[in-house]
């Protein structure tokens, strides 16, 4: 049996990032004046959960930090401390710190603990000081907190006076225990932190040394734990091992009190490694199926300890929806297979077209029905990869709050259509462009409150994020009711930057489009928020790479709206088939500008650029595909074939092809499954006739051609 902790790490990080998101959302919801108990509980559970996992994997920094958080949150949820603005802000900052810590740990990079330490110190001081409300001068609150502290102290003394409960624990490891990243040693160390632990090991099932499987634990133990901790604290130590061990926890009658029992150590103990594994969400790592082994945890009468409510099922995930986690590779495999079915069906249809007779008719109608079924199946499976766009939108409330505060503006964020679904990969890549657009709106769009009032607008500006399906694609909108774009200024700026001719006659839309030109920025000074190196040109490029498009509408003084259209999935591309020699290649439609035929002599040689031709005032390089790909040419002269002007990564070129074939939707298959990545090739597809056609990677091809030119000159 081989062990790979990495997959468990991956799950831990994935789930922890999600947990942090829900913690952040809860914090934003939290009303400092009247905090909701359930919200505080949610936040507490997140910290507890992350602490547990981190401790288990030995991520001590994270465990220690979340332990401090947990301590503070425990005070808050028990009412021993009140939520203040300072605490709420500090907790929000903790989310950022934790995210950074996890990312660093995930990548194996060092992490600068300055912020973490500062926050930790602040929280520890706050907890130590009790519930002294920093900003609030509320005498009543002060008295409340003092009496709470006194009550808590009394409780502790009472607990100490009664004899400490003893628990008998039987633990036997099952074969998969170690393989799933559990370690009895660490579990017992945790138990020992709860009180006094005695351990007896049962070696009876140890095989001979040669027969030992190093990843299997053959041992069993009988433990006695003297602790004032509640039953669920003991349960949670073994939570991660559920299913991989035989476990029995029984409370024994407390012995006659002889010496004063030690004060039961609450979880606020010192060691950062003391991590009680926390309520873990549903399933473990995707590849591991939960072992069906028996776990016996006989319910004992709940400890009559002071007001210990039986905990709700610690396994209950925060989100109780009826869903399962699926590795994305499984879905891609499924999509792959469906794609192949589409191809097979099209092959069959082509064949069937050649037959005659009664049977042939029935065959053809059957196949037509099959085609409909398959198209439905294809759409269903593509939907599996789709997730609500709300998950990307959810990062914006925080962003808007932070940025508008920093700028001294009042901005309300409105979100609609968050249930609209989008392919997972597209979702992941659309985040950055959206952030840029929203920041732009806040920074350059929405005016300062007094400017708005002077213009007859409400002091509070609105930024609106919207998403909806239309015509087989998805549209995302980022709009604001700010000052809009000034055409005159745009034009002047473009002229100043030498991007357009001062006499150029441009339509309004064309002027607005200017902002997508590289190196363009309309702000008088670029603030550090949105001016730094990332321009609208990058945003447009990123969106184009996803097969989408971005447009804008603006009205001076009223506002601006950016509309992004995206395809529903990445696995399928609309392509133009072209013939080059005896080969067929597919050119993605989104990259094609225009196809044209050159006149003889239209192309010329330019030093350092090779063959070039003139197109809309620019000189574009000619890429002879048959040369690039080592395919015997059918035509040598440029004017005998066609030039297809394509664009990739902001650069344009003319592909020299023999002829245009048809247009169709093709399923992209990776070359790397069985072979390797090829420069200039973005995948392959299977045509209706069953032959393979390569799909061009236009940006890569243009880059490759440029490199070859350089090499020729060198």
């Amino acid at each position, binding site marked *: 049996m081989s062990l790979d902790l990495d997959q468990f790490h991956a799950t831990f990080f994935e789930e922890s990032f999600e947990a942090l998101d829900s913690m952040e959302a809860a914090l934003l919801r939290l009303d400092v004046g009247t905090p909701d108990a359930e919200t505080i509980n949610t936040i507490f559970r997140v910290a507890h959960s992350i602490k547990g996992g981190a401790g288990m994997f030995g991520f001590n920094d994270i465990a220690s930090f979340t332990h401090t958080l947990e301590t503070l949150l425990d005070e808050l949820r028990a009412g021993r401390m009140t939520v203040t603005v300072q605490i709420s802000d500090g907790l929000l900052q903790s989310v950022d710190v934790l995210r950074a810590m996890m990312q660093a740990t995930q990548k194996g990079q060092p992490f600068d603990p300055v912020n973490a330490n500062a926050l930790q110190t602040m929280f520890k001081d706050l907890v130590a000081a009790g519930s002294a409300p920093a900003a609030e001068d509320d005498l009543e609150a002060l008295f409340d907190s003092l009496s709470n502290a006194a009550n808590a102290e009394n409780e502790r003394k009472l607990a100490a006076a009664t004899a400490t409960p003893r628990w008998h624990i039987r633990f036997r490891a099952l074969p998969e225990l170690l393989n799933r990243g559990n370690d009895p040693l660490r579990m017992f160390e945790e138990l020992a932190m709860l009180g006094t632990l005695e351990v007896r090991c049962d070696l009876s099932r140890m095989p*001979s040394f040669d027969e030992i499987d190093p990843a299997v*634990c053959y041992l069993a133990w009988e433990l006695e734990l003297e602790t004032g901790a509640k039953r669920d604290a003991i349960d949670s130590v073994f939570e991660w091992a559920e299913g991989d061990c035989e476990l029995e926890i029984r409370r024994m009658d407390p012995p006659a009190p002889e010496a004063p029992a030690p004060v039961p150590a609450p979880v606020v103990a010192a060691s950062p490694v003391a991590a009680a594994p926390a309520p873990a969400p549903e399933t473990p790592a995707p590849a591991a199926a939960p072992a069906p082994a028996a776990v016996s945890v006989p319910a004992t009468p709940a400890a009559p300890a002071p007001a210990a409510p039986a905990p709700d099922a610690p396994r209950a995930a925060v989100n109780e929806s009826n869903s399962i986690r699926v590795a994305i590779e499984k879905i891609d495999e499924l999509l792959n297979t469906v794609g192949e079915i589409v191809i097979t069906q099209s092959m069959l249809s082509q064949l069937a077209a050649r037959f005659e007779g009664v049977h042939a008719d029935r065959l053809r109608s059957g196949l037509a029905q099959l085609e409909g079924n398959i198209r439905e199946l294809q759409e269903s499976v593509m939907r599996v990869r789709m997730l609500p766009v709300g998950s990307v939108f959810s990062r914006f409330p925080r962003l808007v709050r932070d940025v508008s505060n920093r700028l001294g503006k009042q901005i309300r964020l409105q979100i609609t259509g968050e249930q609209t679904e989008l392919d997972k990969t597209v979702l992941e890549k659309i985040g950055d462009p959206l952030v840029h657009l929203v920041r732009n709106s806040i920074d350059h769009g929405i005016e300062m409150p007094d400017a708005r009032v002077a213009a007859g607008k409400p002091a509070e500006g609105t930024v609106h994020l919207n998403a909806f399906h239309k015509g087989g694609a998805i549209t995302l909108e980022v709009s604001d009711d700010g000052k809009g774009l000034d055409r005159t200024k745009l034009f002047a700026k473009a002229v100043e930057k030498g991007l357009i001719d001062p006499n150029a006659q441009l339509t309004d839309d064309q002027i607005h489009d200017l902002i997508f030109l590289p190196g363009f920025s309309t702000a008088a000074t670029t603030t550090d928020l949105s001016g730094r190196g990332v321009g609208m040109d990058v945003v447009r490029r990123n969106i184009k790479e996803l097969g989408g498009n971005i447009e804008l509408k603006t009205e001076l003084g009223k506002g601006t709206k950016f509309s992004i259209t995206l395809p529903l999935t990445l696995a399928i591309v609309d392509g133009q088939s072209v013939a080059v020699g005896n080969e067929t290649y597919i050119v993605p439609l989104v990259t094609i500008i225009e196809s044209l035929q050159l006149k003889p002599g239209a192309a010329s040689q330019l030093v350092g650029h090779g063959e070039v031709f003139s197109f809309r005032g620019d000189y574009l390089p000619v890429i002879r595909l048959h040369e690039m790909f080592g395919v015997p040419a059918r035509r040598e002269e440029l004017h005998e074939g066609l030039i297809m002007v394509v664009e990739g990564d902001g650069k344009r070129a003319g592909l020299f092809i023999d002829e245009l074939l048809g247009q169709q939707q093709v399923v992209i298959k990776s070359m790397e499954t069985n072979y390797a990545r090829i420069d200039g090739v973005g995948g392959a597809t299977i045509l209706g006739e069953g032959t393979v056609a390569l799909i061009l990677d236009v940006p890569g091809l243009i880059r490759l051609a440029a490199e070859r030119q350089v090499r020729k000159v060198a």
Partner: protein
Amino acid sequence: MPVAEAMSSPFPLDKQCTVREAEAFKLVLAAAEDSSGDFVIDGSAVERIDTAGLQLLLGFAARLKLTERRLVWQGVSPALRQGAAQLGLADALGLAEAA
């Protein structure tokens, strides 16, 4: 491995003796055994050890016992001592009397 009467030098344990290294650890232990007297082992370098590592030592000690040999410790790190104690294996590993 020289077949001498006593072990020429103690068998050193690595600083990591956890489930990750367990397969290799088992091979190394198996190869280290020779047919001389007590098996001297140096655990002073151990920084991280877990159930898998301790279990292998246990199995090894048990095998030695079959030929009337003992596991003798020359150097025990705090991590090793604590780990063994926590799992209730101090006696079985002969750590109780070890310095």
